[in-house]
């Protein structure tokens, strides 16, 4: 895994934003935290959606499942009555957690959330990967909607009235910085994991599945295992991020846990905008999307959805490969893509000699 010069400078710039952003602009700490969350969502969506060509509209399911899993773990570990009693009291019980209990609970909660997301994706993969193309997309969207509806019928986790998350034991500024660092940390870890993964045989197999899955199968590539792994990684990180987001929000219910029309769609839109199937596309897409979203929310209130819609339309109509994809076709040599200068037809016979001619 070598890092070229361009990437190095990008890392320096993003690292500086990540570390100094909240120090220089303390008012925007949570907004930048959401930026990293969106970077993670778009990047992990791309593992299956971009690299493998399986456009999932249901990755938000793992976010919600992770959020609820962490709530259950955090509450039941340190509150004697358990989750059922806590939720049925409808928020009238406010147990005081010590700092140690809170942070232990949160750590375990995030881990449980990741594992719950992963387990859920493995369960889904047993039947979902029989679907392809638009059927997979719609099927996965159905999973998210079903998960949201099922969640509100479970009284154990508060049903439709939701759960209040344990109170953060500390100053409000420290709270922001703490959750900020979690979001940033998870975005960084997921990015480098994916970067490494795409440089191995996994990256090639994923692209092979995208280009021609039947051929890959005919060549003996265990395609199902690769798809499971790709979705599993996304599910794990989405689960962890769900746990963090739930604690940031302080209160969770169906709307917070399964934001299908917002984050659920945003993550796909961001990956498409930046260029799906590339490492940097979803990162770039998330940054642009988030900046536009925050700016329009501030200065063009009421028009923000129109602005986002406009970006999507321009993206889909004029830049289907996204920004990175467009750059790659425009300046292929900068991305190490070789284009043949000679006409390929007459090279047929002429180049049969291969190396000798080269």
């Amino acid at each position, binding site marked *: 895994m070598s890092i070229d010069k361009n990437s190095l400078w990008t890392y320096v710039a993003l690292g500086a934003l990540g570390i100094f952003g909240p120090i220089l602009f303390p008012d925007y700490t949570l907004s930048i935290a959401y930026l990293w969350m969106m970077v993670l969502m778009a990047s992990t969506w791309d593992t299956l959606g971009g690299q493998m060509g399986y456009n999932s509209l249901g990755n938000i399911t793992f976010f919600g499942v992770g959020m609820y899993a962490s709530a259950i773990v955090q509450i039941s570990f340190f509150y004697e009555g358990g989750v059922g009693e806590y939720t049925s009291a409808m928020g009238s019980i406010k147990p005081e957690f010590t700092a140690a209990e809170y942070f232990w609970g949160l750590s375990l909660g995030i881990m449980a959330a990741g594992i719950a997301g992963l387990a859920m994706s493995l369960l889904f993969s047993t039947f979902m990967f029989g679907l392809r193309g638009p059927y997979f997309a719609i099927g996965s969207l159905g999973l998210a909607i079903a998960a949201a509806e099922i969640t509100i019928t479970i009284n154990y986790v508060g049903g439709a009235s939701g759960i209040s998350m344990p109170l953060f034991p500390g100053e409000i500024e420290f709270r922001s910085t703490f959750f900020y660092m979690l979001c940033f940390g998870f975005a960084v870890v997921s990015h480098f994991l994916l970067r490494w993964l795409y440089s191995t045989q996994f990256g090639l197999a994923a692209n092979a599945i995208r280009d*021609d899955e039947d051929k890959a199968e005919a060549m*003996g590539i265990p395609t199902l295992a690769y798809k499971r*792994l790709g979705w599993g990684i996304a599910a794990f990180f989405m689960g962890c991020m769900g746990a963090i987001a739930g604690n940031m929000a302080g209160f969770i219910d169906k709307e917070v846990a399964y934001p299908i029309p917002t984050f659920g769609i945003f993550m796909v839109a961001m990956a498409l905008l930046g260029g799906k199937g590339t490492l940097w596309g979803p990162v770039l897409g998330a940054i642009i999307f988030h900046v536009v979203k925050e700016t329009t929310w501030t200065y063009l209130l009421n028009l923000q959805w129109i602005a986002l819609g406009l970006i999507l339309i321009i993206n889909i109509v004029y830049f289907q490969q996204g920004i990175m994809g467009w750059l790659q076709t425009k300046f292929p040599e900068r991305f190490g893509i070789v284009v043949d200068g000679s006409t*390929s037809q007459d090279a*047929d*016979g002429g180049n049969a000699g291969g190396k000798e001619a080269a």
Partner: protein
Amino acid sequence: MSDPIIEVESVSKSYGGVKANVDITMNVQRGSITGIIGPNGCGKTTLFNSIVGYHPIDDGSIRFDGKEISDLRVGDIARLGMLRTFQQTRIYSKMNCVDNMQISVSQRADSGFLMFASRRGEIKDRAEHLLEFVGLYSKRNLISGDLSFGQQKLLEFAMALMNEPKVLLLDEPTAGINPTLINGLIDRLQRANEELGITLCVIEHNMRVIMNLASHIYCLANGKMLADGLPADLQNDQRVVDAYLGGH
């Protein structure tokens, strides 16, 4: 001295009312080059599809290396060491040639960690060596979808070799390749057979090619096995001539 690596026994396959293969029996000898000929629509590709597990067969038995494979699926059979190429060439069109080659390595000995293997070193060397073997070395870094049809066909052949199969089923390897390149391809098929020890089974319409290449030829017509024998015998078989000329 008979040592069949593929044994097809009384295989039948129909699509609805269409009987694509009826009671087909054939053997492919280990280390040989076996040909399958027959007029368009006579069931050659269906037979290939049955052998590699693309669809379930209605009746009969198919054994590979002594093992019954008629109930296995494509991926399982490929991992046993039997591959096929497609009549409509299939490659990973958005990846470059070296990447196409590197992802085609054999999955037979995979213990689950091949997924995370690095792409450098031995695998890359072998990929480039085989690209040189088929004459595509100078094109190795091009996006494979930008290659001409003939070059894509060569790439698909090289990808199959990269997989180090025991048996390779080739569906019309010379179709669409320009005539000057066909001789080179015949030569490479023979070398793959002799030097790499790969058993070949070839569907081919080009009589000049198949008669030079194969040691034993099967002829299908209307889904049934019409005749089989040495190339010279088959060329003089009136039934084969009739089938090709439409006298059937």
